[in-house]
C-alpha cells in the first residue's frame, strides 16, 4: 500500500513536470517510478508522457531522435510502450513505424517499399526462427539431420541477401535480431545437448553465422536475443499461449528486459563508449583502508573477501586491454599506494603501469577528474567514476554531472562487477588496433602534460622528457612512411612538395643528395618516424627541397636538430652555404618563420617571382645550426658514410 501511495505521488509529479515542460525532472522521476513499480500500466503511463514531451526531451536533454522502422514477422505492438520508455531512459526518442507481418522481405528488397519511403535512421529486423529458418525444427527432429547444415547455409544466405539489398539503398543503422534457442523440444534436454544436429545446436550455429554476416554489413549490429533470454530465464521468456494466439514472441513479463536489451544493443551504433574509468582505492579496488591497515592489511588476493576485489581488478584489466583507460582517483598518500602495489603485487590483478594516470592526493576528487580530463584532452562525458563513499559519489554527480558514477557496494563487494556490467557505457560493437593501443598513447600524453605543469621552465621540461632523435635514411623509414609523411603533413611542412617514392630515392642516390628521416622517442613512448628532410648539395650550396615534421612533435627542438643534421651533412659534402625555401600554403603558417628563427637571411635576389617560393640563406662557416642540448642524437654515423661516398664521387 505504501508502495501504491509512492507510485501515485510519483505519477502526479511526473505529470506536473511534463506539463511544465521540465524534461529532466520528468525523466528522473520516471526512473524512480520504474524502480518501485514494474506494472505495465506505469510503463504505459511513462511512454505516453514521454511521447507528449518528445520535443522537449530533444531540446533540453539532447536526446537523440531517431526515425525507427521495425521490420517484423511477429507481434511487437504491445512492446512498443516499453521500447519508448527504455529509449528515453537512455536518452533516445524513437519515432517508430512498424511494418507488416508478411511483408518483411518486400520491405527490405523493394526500393519503393514503405520502409524505403520512411527514410529511417534506424531499422530493427525482428524475425522469428519460423521465418529465418522455418524448416530447422523438422530437420533437426532426429538429431542426425543430414540436411541441417545446408538449411542453415541457405537461411544465412537469404538473410545476407536481404541485408545487402537494404544496405545498397539506405545508410540507416541496422539491428538484426538473432533467434532464441527453443526451450522445449521432442528430443528433450539430453538429446538436445548430445546430438550434433539437435535444434539447440543448430540454432546456436545459425546465430553465430548470422552474427558473422552482420559483421560484414556496415553499421549493423547483431542482437543476441538468445543470450538475453538465457540470462533472464528461458522458462519465463516466452508465453506459448500468447505466441500461438497472437504471435507475440515474448511473455509480458519479459517486455521490459527485451526493450532494454534492444536499446542497449543499438546504442553503440550511435554513441562512442566512455573512455576512462576512474577508480577509488580503499574499499573499492581493495578491501579496507590502506592508511589504517597498512599494505599487509588490505583485502585482495585469492582468499575471500580479497578475491572479490581481485575479480574487480581483473575486470578492469580486461577493460584496459580493449582501450578503456584506467585511472586512480584516491585520497591517499602516493608513497603508501606505491608501496602497497609493490608489496601486494602477487595479490593484485593490476600494476601501477596499467593506469594511465594516478590522482592520489587529498584534493577534491572533482578537481582531480577535471585535471585528468584536461591532461588526456578528453571530455568529462568520457569518464566513469567508481567509489564506495556515497559522499564522494554525490559530489561528483553534482559537480560533474557528465561523469557516470558507480557506487561500489562496500558491504557486498562481489556485486561490483555486476553493477558495472549492467551499465552500457563501455559497450562497443567493434574494437580496433588503435583502441587496444590507446593506453600507451594516452599515458605518454598525460605524463608529458603533468611534467609540463611541474617543470619550472621550457628547457627544463624538454630536458626531462629525455628525447632521443634517431636519424636514418628516408629509404629505411621505411620509404612508404617517408612518402606518407610527404603526402599527409600540412602544418609543419616548408614546401609541401608531395614527392613520390622514386623522387625520394633520387635524392638519396644522387651525388650530394640527402634524404633523411628522423625517429623520435622520449621517456614516455616512441612516436615513430615523424620527420623528413630532402636536400641536395651542388658546389658550395646545399639547397633544402623539403623539410617537414609531424605536428605531434612540434615545439620540442626536433625541427632544429633536423636542420642541424642537414647542415652537418652539407658541410661534409663541401657546402659553405645552406639555402632554405618556404612556400606558403593555407595551412603551413606555423613554420613561416622557421628559417629566420634559425639565423637565415631572406634572399631577396633569388626570389623566383614566377612561384610563391621565398628563399633564405645561411653561412655555414660562421652560423651553422646546432641541435638543442636537451636532445640526444643517434644515427649520425650512417650519414657520415654516405657523405664520404659523396666526397669520393
Amino acid at each position, binding site marked *: 500500500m505504501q508502495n501504491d501511495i509512492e507510485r501515485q505521488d510519483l505519477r502526479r509529479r511526473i505529470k506536473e513536470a511534463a506539463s511544465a515542460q521540465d524534461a529532466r525532472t520528468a525523466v528522473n522521476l520516471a526512473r524512480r517510478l520504474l524502480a518501485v513499480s514494474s*506494472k*505495465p*500500466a*506505469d510503463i*504505459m*503511463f511513462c511512454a*505516453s508522457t514521454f511521447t507528449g514531451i518528445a520535443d522537449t526531451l530533444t531540446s533540453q536533454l539532447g536526446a537523440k531522435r531517431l526515425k525507427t522502422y521495425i521490420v517484423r514477422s511477429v*507481434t511487437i*505492438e*504491445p512492446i512498443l*510502450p516499453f521500447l519508448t520508455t527504455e529509449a528515453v531512459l537512455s536518452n533516445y526518442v524513437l519515432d517508430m513505424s512498424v511494418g507488416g507481418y508478411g511483408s518483411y522481405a518486400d520491405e527490405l528488397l523493394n526500393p519503393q517499399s514503405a520502409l524505403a519511403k520512411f527514410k529511417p535512421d534506424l531499422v530493427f529486423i525482428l524475425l522469428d526462427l519460423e521465418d529465418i529458418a522455418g524448416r530447422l525444427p523438422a530437420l533437426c527432429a532426429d538429431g542426425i539431420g543430414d540436411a541441417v547444415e545446408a538449411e542453415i547455409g541457405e537461411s544465412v544466405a537469404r538473410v545476407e541477401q536481404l541485408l545487402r539489398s537494404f544496405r545498397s539503398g539506405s545508410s540507416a543503422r541496422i539491428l538484426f535480431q538473432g533467434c532464441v534457442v527453443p526451450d522445449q523440444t521432442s528430443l528433450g534436454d539430453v538429446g538436445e545437448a548430445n546430438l550434433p544436429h539437435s535444434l539447440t545446436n543448430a540454432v546456436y550455429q545459425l546465430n553465430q553465422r548470422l552474427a558473422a554476416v552482420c559483421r560484414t554489413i556496415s553499421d549493423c549490429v547483431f542482437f543476441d536475443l538468445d543470450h538475453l533470454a538465457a540470462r533472464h530465464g528461458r522458462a519465463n521468456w516466452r508465453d506459448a*499461449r*500468447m505466441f*500461438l*494466439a*497472437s504471435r*507475440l514472441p515474448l511473455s*509480458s*513479463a519479459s517486455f521490459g528486459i527485451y526493450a532494454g536489451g534492444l536499446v542497449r544493443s543499438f546504442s553503440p551504433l550511435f554513441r562512442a563508449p566512455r573512455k576512462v574509468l576512474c577508480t577509488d582505492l580503499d574499499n573499492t579496488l581493495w578491501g579496507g583502508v590502506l592508511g589504517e591497515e597498512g599494505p599487509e592489511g588490505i583485502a585482495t588476493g585469492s582468499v575471500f573477501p580479497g578475491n572479490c576485489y581481485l575479480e574487480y581488478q581483473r575486470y578492469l584489466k580486461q577493460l584496459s586491454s580493449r582501450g578503456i583507460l584506467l585511472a586512480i582517483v584516491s585520497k591517499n598518500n602516493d608513497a603508501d599506494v606505491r608501496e602497497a602495489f609493490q608489496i601486494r603485487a602477487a595479490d593484485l590483478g593490476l600494476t601501477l603501469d596499467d593506469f594511465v594516470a594516478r590522482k592520489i592526493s587529498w584534493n577534491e576528487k572533482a578537481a582531480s577528474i577535471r585535471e585528468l580530463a584536461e591532461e588526456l584532452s578528453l571530455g568529462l562525458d568520457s569518464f566513469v567514476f567508481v567509489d564506495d563513499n556515497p559522499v564522494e559519489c554525490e559530489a561528483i554527480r553534482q559537480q560533474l554531472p557528465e561523469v557516470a558514477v558507480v557506487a561500489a557496494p562496500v558491504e557486498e563487494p562481489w556485486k561490483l562487477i555486476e553493477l558495472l556490467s549492467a551499465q552500457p557505457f563501455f559497450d562497443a560493437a567493434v574494437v580496433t588496433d588503435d583502441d587496444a593501443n590507446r593506453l600507451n598513447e594516452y599515458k605518454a600524453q598525460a605524463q608529458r602534460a603533468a611534467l609540463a605543469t611541474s617543470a619550472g621552465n621550457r628547457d627544463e621540461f624538454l630536458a626531462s622528457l629525455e628525447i632521443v632523435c634517431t636519424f636514418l635514411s628516408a629509404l629505411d623509414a621505411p620509404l612508404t612512411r617517408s612518402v606518407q609523411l610527404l603526402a599527409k603533413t600540412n602544418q609543419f611542412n616548408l614546401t609541401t612538395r608531395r614527392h613520390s617514392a622514386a623522387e625520394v630515392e633520387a635524392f638519396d642516390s644522387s651525388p650530394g643528395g640527402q634524404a633523411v628521416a628522423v625517429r623520435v622517442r622520449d621517456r614516455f613512448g616512441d612516436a615513430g618516424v615523424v620527420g623528413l628532410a630532402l636536400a641536395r648539395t651542388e658546389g658550395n650550396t646545399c639547397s633544402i627541397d623539403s623539410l617537414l615534421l609531424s605536428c605531434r612533435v612540434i615545439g620540442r627542438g626536433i625541427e632544429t636538430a633536423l636542420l642541424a643534421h642537414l647542415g652537418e651533412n652539407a658541410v661534409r659534402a663541401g657546402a659553405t652555404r645552406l639555402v632554405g625555401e618556404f612556400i606558403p600554403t593555407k595551412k603551413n603558417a606555423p613554420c613561416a618563420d622557421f628559417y629566420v628563427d634559425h639565423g637565415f637571411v631572406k634572399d631577396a635576389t633569388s626570389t623566383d617571382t614566377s612561384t610563391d617560393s621565398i628563399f633564405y640563406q645561411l653561412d655555414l662557416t660562421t652560423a651553422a645550426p646546432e641541435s638543442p642540448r636537451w636532445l640526444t642524437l643517434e644515427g649520425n654515423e650512417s650519414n657520415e658514410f654516405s657523405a664520404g661516398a659523396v666526397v669520393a664521387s
Partner: protein
Amino acid sequence: MSSQQVPSSLRDILADVLEISPEEVTPELGVGTIDNWDSFRHLQAILAVEGEYSVQFDPSRIPELTTVSLIQAELIAKGATL
C-alpha cells in the same frame, strides 16, 4: 453509468493503456467506442490486466472481452480480487 462502478485498480490500468482519464473508464467503454481502443490496444490492455491481477485469460475468450464490464466479469470469474 459512471466510472464509479468500475473498481479503481481496473479503471487506472485501462486509463493508462488507453491514454484517457480514469473518469472516462465506464463499464460500457469498449473496443470501437473510442478511437484509442483498437485491436492492438486491446491486446495491451488484456496483458496489463493479466499482469496486474496475476491471471491468464483463455486466448479464445480474449477477443470477446470487448468492454470494461466484460473484462471485469471475466476477472471475477477467474477469482481475481478487484
